[in-house]
């Protein structure tokens, strides 16, 4: 029988849920944040903007790769025999 360290996995998923929960108010507050940014906007150089845009594009590529990998893992599991998953643990 395979032994799995479940505590670590559950903790990591809880951490992910916490991050997403904390992201929600940040998105909701974006219009108000925009007001503050408008005041400080002159401090941003076009180079900074280019760097952040590049980081965003890199993130998009990472997301696409993660989505493709996850879909592959899930599809393989979806096609697996039900007994095979029940045997684990």
């Amino acid at each position, binding site marked *: 029988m*395979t032994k*799995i360290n*479940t505590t670590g*996995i*559950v903790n*990591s*998923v*809880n951490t*992910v*849920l916490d*991050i*997403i*929960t904390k*992201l*929600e108010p*940040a*998105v*909701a507050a*974006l*219009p*108000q*944040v*925009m*007001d503050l*940014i*408008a*005041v400080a*906007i*002159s401090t*941003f150089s*076009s180079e*900074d*903007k280019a760097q*952040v*845009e590049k*980081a*965003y594009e890199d*993130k*998009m*590529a*990472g*997301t*696409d790769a*993660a*989505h*493709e*990998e*996850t*879909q592959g*893992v*899930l*599809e393989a*599991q*979806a096609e*697996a025999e*039900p007994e095979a*998953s*029940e045997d*684990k*643990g």
Partner: protein
Amino acid sequence: MRLPYICTTLMAALSLASCSSASAFPSPGNIPTTLPHTTLADDKIGIAVETAYQAASLAERTAVKAGFVSPAQARTLINLDNQAYEAVCLTRTAYDVANGQDPSARQDGCSAASKANRYVGYVEAARMAVEMLKSLVSTTKGLQQDYLSR
């Protein structure tokens, strides 16, 4: 000279605020105005949404590899994962529209439908993505808790 620029920025921010309370698919008249080119908030929120998806995606894969997910549950997760990814794509489209760029020019895995939907404001799209990701992670977490309680 800075005042008109700040006013323009504030108007864009107010426009976004009005979109945030609109329905999921606002009418074309509610399309957000172009964001100031130097604003970084939209990029950073976009990066946060992408990172959140990647984290949720990792949680799904980990759950499968640990044996928490049955084949039937995997099929449910496939749909939830695709919906979350499409919501992330919608955020990209809204970002492109707000920044005066053509979403269809982007080379990525997003569907043509998500790139064609230009009527969702940036804040609303990001909020939709967060909601979808919360649902996805909650489901994954629930599967793990069910497994551990057996």
